[in-house]
């Protein structure tokens, strides 16, 4: 009962944050409402007894990635007249909603056929660091290494792109 109330509170907050991201004109406000969505998603992860992912969501997503985005938004010093004019935005939004409603309806129909489980606490080790680490370093070792390679490539690429010194200017 209590967990259901928490679920509805967190999901309403998440949907409101996502709506704010889509509807606010300034990207700073959108980023702030996306932070609300991230934090309420972390609460939902803790309701699903995913302890490690709960912590990672708070530290990596709501902490690192969002502060990087907000830092760049503030770094570029975006004023209101720098923003692109979106005069037909609400017409596009209405059209997008009309297109997406059948898709949502179809997907919710599919989700209804999946067998549910009771909202109980699963075994004591579910979702802890040790259990996830065991699976990660035994069954998922090759994807883990590929992801580390991807991070290295991204690091080099970001340095090459953003730190380019143009000569002759």
């Amino acid at each position, binding site marked *: 009962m209590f967990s259901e109330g928490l679920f509805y509170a967190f999901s309403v907050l998440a949907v409101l944050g996502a709506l704010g991201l889509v509807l606010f004109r300034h*990207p700073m406000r959108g980023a702030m409402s996306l932070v609300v969505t991230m934090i309420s998603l972390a609460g939902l992860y803790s309701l699903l007894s995913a302890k490690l992912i709960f912590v990672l969501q708070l530290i990596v*997503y709501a902490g690192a990635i969002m502060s990087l985005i907000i830092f*760049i938004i503030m770094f570029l010093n975006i004023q209101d007249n720098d923003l*692109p004019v979106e005069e037909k935005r609400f017409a596009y939004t209405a059209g997008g909603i009309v297109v997406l409603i059948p898709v949502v309806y179809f997907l919710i129909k599919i989700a209804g056929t999946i067998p549910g489980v009771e909202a109980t606490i699963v075994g004591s080790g579910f979702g802890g660091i040790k259990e996830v680490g065991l699976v990660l370093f035994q069954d998922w070792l090759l994807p883990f290494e590929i992801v580390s390679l991807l991070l290295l490539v991204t690091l080099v690429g970001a340095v090459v792109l953003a730190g380019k010194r143009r000569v002759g200017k």
Partner: protein
Amino acid sequence: MIQDYLILSIILFCLGILGVITRRNVFTVFMSIELMLNAANLAFIAFSRLHESMDGHVLAMMIMAVAAAEAALALAVVILLHKHKGKLDTNVFSLLRG
């Protein structure tokens, strides 16, 4: 219980699609992509809870790593394009148009 989480995930994913197709601000488009990645994460964790196995958690961690990499690279590209064009409009960034 799991259905509710999946429905929330679907709604968040479709809001992300709506943000990508309706907005022209490059930051908002980028953050909508992050929102879609988050919705996929929620579906992974919900299915992992349904089957009581850890594979979904591992996949969610991988998605977080890919999202971090994507954020670093995409923001570098945005800074570069802002330096070149001085605008944040996705319609201006049509360098590959034939």
